[in-house]
């Protein structure tokens, strides 16, 4: 997170999309950034960063369609985010940013242009990316709806064939994760469905999802997250349901930690950011599970679940920030060069310990960079190693 907000000399430079030297890596890093959660959210996050950076130290209200209004305050090395207006700050001191509706498609257009460029450079190597040009232009709402239908029909088919629900859920979870790894489905969809699949696994041999879908009184569901909550409420009303949801969310949290351990041990830039990308649906799924429990429980129990949901939310935010940095660097090394200058500035002003502290934050605390970037960030080498043997 360090200095993510106004790291470059001019805030508007954060929005620059420049042709990279390694087009293939740029495509992959952009696909990771877009698909980690939801392309339109990522587009909005990208588009708002310059405005947030330009208002350094000031509270900014972010109004975005389909996302709850948020409040952010950012300075060079610290930031705050909250879902309610900041206390003791007058309304006229809060800057308001309204996102265009429909959300921008700037990054997806850039992705298409990079794929076209790769086609010219390396027609064979470009083949695997061709279908991403159209896929990301598709309707997100429709893809979310299809995902819910997919779950329902998989459960129905499983029931007809006498396959246990947990086995169907397990199979669906592995298919989704494989598709996510190939950028064929977005992290938000995978997170919500993973949460439900893990509930089913925890409840085996019970059939909590089938029962929830069959018995829960129909209520209007507007989006994928709403569908997830609808099914969870049906599970919650079953005997032991809250326990299954809690266990499933815990299981997903443990998967996040395992993925982050993989990132820490990564020997190449691709496997580092790949592991961070893989952690996000697990973190998002766990956040949905704990968040649901925090709203359905009461008292201390609700507060404890809210804390767990916050932890998962932070994991998502850190992961997303790292993927954004990777994409920026894939174009022109903008962030790592700026971070390296920041480390050097700390050394000049406060000494070596402060330079090291800055690098510890970038590598160990926020996991923005892999461990093998340490010598480069500390200025001990001018060669940025992308892979260690």
């Amino acid at each position, binding site marked *: *997170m360090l200095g993510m907000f106004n790291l470059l000399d001019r805030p508007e430079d954060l929005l620059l999309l420049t042709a990279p030297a390694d087009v293939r890596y740029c495509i992959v890093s952009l696909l990771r950034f877009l698909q980690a959660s939801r392309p339109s959210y990522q587009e909005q996050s990208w588009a708002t960063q310059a405005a947030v950076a330009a208002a350094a130290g000031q509270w900014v209200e972010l109004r975005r369609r389909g996302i709850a209004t948020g409040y952010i305050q950012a300075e060079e090395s610290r930031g*705050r985010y909250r879902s309610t207006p900041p206390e003791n700050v007058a309304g006229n001191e809060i800057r308001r940013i309204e996102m265009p509706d429909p959300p921008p498609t700037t990054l997806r257009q850039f992705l298409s242009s990079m794929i076209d460029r790769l086609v010219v450079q390396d027609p064979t190597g470009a083949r695997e990316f061709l279908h991403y040009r159209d896929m990301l232009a598709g309707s997100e709402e429709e893809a979310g709806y299809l995902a819910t239908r997919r779950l329902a029909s998989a459960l129905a088919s499983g029931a007809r064939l006498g396959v246990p629900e947990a086995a169907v859920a397990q199979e669906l979870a592995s298919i989704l994760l494989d598709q996510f790894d190939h950028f064929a489905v977005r992290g938000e969809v995978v997170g919500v469905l993973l949460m439900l699949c893990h509930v089913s696994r925890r409840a085996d041999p019970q059939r909590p999802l089938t029962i929830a879908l069959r018995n829960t009184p129909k209520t209007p569901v507007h989006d994928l997250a709403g569908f997830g909550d609808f099914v969870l409420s049906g599970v919650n009303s079953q005997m032991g349901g809250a326990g299954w949801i809690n266990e499933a969310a815990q299981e997903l949290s443990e998967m996040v930690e395992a993925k982050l351990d993989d990132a820490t041990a990564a020997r190449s830039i691709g496997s580092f950011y790949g592991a961070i990308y893989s952690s996000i649906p697990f973190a998002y799924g766990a956040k949905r599970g704990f968040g649901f429990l925090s709203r359905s429980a009461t008292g201390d129990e609700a507060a404890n679940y809210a804390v*767990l949901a916050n932890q998962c939310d*932070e994991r998502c935010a850190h992961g997303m920030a790292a993927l954004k940095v990777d994409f920026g660097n894939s174009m022109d090394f903008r962030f790592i060069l700026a971070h390296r200058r920041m480390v050097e500035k700390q050394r000049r002003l406060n000494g070596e310990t402060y330079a090291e502290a800055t690098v*510890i934050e970038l590598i*160990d*605390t926020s996991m923005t960079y892999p461990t093998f970037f340490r010598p480069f960030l500390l200025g001990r080498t001018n060669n940025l190693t992308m892979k260690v043997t």
Partner: protein
Amino acid sequence: MDDQSAESTRLRIVSAIGRDSLYITSADKERHYDGVSFVALYGGQLFLTFVTVVGTQFWDKLKEEGAKKLVDVAWEKAAGALKGFLGKGEAKSDVEQIERIKEASSALALLGREVEKTYLEAFVAAGQAAVEARLRQDNLPHAKAKRIAAAVAQEVKSKLAAG
């Protein structure tokens, strides 16, 4: 010990906390991106909490052994160094905390030189348990609290060994 060494002590604890720093503020209404200075201050608090428990344990032992008239001059000397440190409350600023870490490190070195190893082991175990409890209270999962408390114990042991 100089400021740089005290900073390095905190930094090694920050490294051990690493990506798990997010747990510390997870109960807050606001999400924080406070940077390394916030985690460093927290790491310093863990170290000082540890040393305070070690010091308190030592004082209790001193009273117990003193009553039995078993305390020698060396123990009295170590007690003198700790008394000044224990009398102060929690550090309110970064600069104050660095000073406190330097004082604590000197007191630990003296303790390490003058007090028998078996006693020291018991003091360290109590300090480690206290830090682990603090981390769990701050919403860190059990295994993570254990790992970080062990890293803080390592810092304390190295200061004791420096004597």
